[in-house]
């Protein structure tokens, strides 16, 4: 049974230009799937359709046996609470502490008042610290998160997603703003999240070699269409050329 099923998805902002065209794929629970493709291929939009940060025009998305497109406001909130999201620029609230930022991940489960007053249970706080410890950044818990390095901030972002206890985590270019060292730490963490915690990860990437190394499966996107969908071992040079429309060597060295 697939956790996420996308059928004939289409999205356009203006009538004449389609960002996504007839996208269909399935993802099983516990998989780590990468979406690769040149910038402007629609990777970000595709990811944001899944938790309806972007409203799509055509097709169906079924997550956990629920049709995403039909949800009302309350159900949508519940859906988003079940899907974590990690961003390229971490998207933390800069002046707040690391631990506060992690706990923001609980808002989906709280009433408006509980959230506004910052009423977190001791269990939630302990869980947040536990996650920070797992990510190796617990000693920074009381620092303002804008004092942390990029890699550390991204780990806070991952903690925020994990404390949601999500079934799926969407990662939008999680390592695009990081140095190689931090990138490796983040990708290792994502890998262990999917294998050890059994949480499905859908990751937008632009580094082909990283995608090949870490993911169970790769989806190649070009100009809003899926041009490749298969195991990472099946991704060969001709496929890559089809995805990027360029020679592989230029990409890997860059």
């Amino acid at each position, binding site marked *: 049974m697939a956790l996420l099923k996308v059928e004939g998805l289409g999205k356009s902002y203006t009538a004449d230009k389609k960002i996504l065209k007839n996208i269909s794929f399935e993802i099983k629970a516990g998989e780590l799937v990468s979406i690769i493709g040149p910038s402007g291929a629609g990777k970000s939009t595709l990811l944001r359709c899944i938790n309806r940060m972007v409203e799509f025009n055509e097709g169906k998305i079924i997550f956990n046996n629920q049709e995403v497109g039909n949800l009302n406001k309350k159900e949508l909130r519940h859906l988003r609470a079940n899907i974590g999201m990690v961003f390229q620029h971490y998207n933390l609230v800069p002046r707040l502490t690391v631990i506060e930022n992690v706990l923001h991940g609980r808002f989906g489960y709280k009433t408006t008042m509980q959230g506004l007053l910052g009423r977190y249970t001791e269990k939630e*706080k302990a869980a947040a610290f536990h996650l920070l410890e797992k990510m190796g950044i617990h000693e920074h818990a009381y620092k303002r998160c804008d004092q942390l390095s990029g890699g550390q901030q991204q780990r806070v972002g991952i903690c925020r997603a994990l404390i949601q206890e999500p079934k799926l985590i969407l990662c939008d270019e999680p390592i695009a703003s990081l140095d190689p060292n931090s990138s490796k730490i983040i990708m290792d963490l994502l890998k262990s999240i999917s294998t050890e915690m059994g949480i499905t990860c859908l990751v937008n990437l632009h580094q082909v070699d990283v995608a090949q190394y870490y993911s169970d499966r790769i989806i190649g996107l070009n100009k809003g269409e899926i041009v490749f969908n298969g195991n990472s071992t099946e991704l060969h040079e001709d496929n890559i050329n089809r995805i990027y429309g360029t020679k592989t060597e230029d990409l890997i060295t860059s």
Partner: protein
Amino acid sequence: MEATYIKTKKDGRIVIKSGNKGDRVLKGTIVVLSILTVISFFFFNYAGLELGSAIRETAYNLKVMFLQPALSTISLSEAIYQVGVTLSLAFLATVIGAVIAFFLSLMAATNLSPVWLTRIVRVFVAFIRAVPTVLWVLIFAIAAGLGSEAAVLGMLFHSIAYLVKAFSEAFEEIDKGIIEALQSTGAGWWHIVKSGVLPSTFTYLLSWIFLRFEINFGVAVAMGAAAGAGGIGFDLFMASSFYFDMREVGFITYAILIVAFLLEVISTRMKKRYFPASSN
């Protein structure tokens, strides 16, 4: 899970706030302002206040002002002329102020002048700023007599203080390299100002000057009303406090509003055009 890095309160609950100085001062400021606000209502003088009827009357007056504006004691051409007078007062104060402020701000910028000089200029400017414009106008009026000279001079003082602050900050942000490069060619101080400082800050200064012009228009209206300095402000004062003619007050308010809107639109445009990226 009893780790040492977790801070807890006395009752064992986990703390999530950082509790640093910035947060404390921020909270303290908000608390102090709130307390002072509550206290202030006890300090108010409520002489002759009948809140209910006052609100009703004001609502009625506002309705008359905005829905039935008309001129009665002055003619339309007179009104336009008086708006022109107010604009002119504001313009004169701004232009003269900008010229003087330019020289003073060179003396106030730490990268262009010795520290002792910048200190003197800054204290001087802070003092001028602290005196309300209307007091400057009234004080000058004693010496010069009530008229455009007193109004312009009074407004001039504040414009200078405002612009010196803005200008000197702009000068201090100039890339050190530009000044050093010119110094290394043996350029004199004036030469550095003319070919290094001025070109790299000119549009920025211009936009501040225009912003001050916008402010000065409002100030000029106020000076007309409060200090009898002439212009449309004086007519506004007469219409409301002397003739109690709300329709005329309405008309004049509209006239002021339109000019103020136009100035705001122009300054926003200028801002967008000259520094699209530096809005923060």
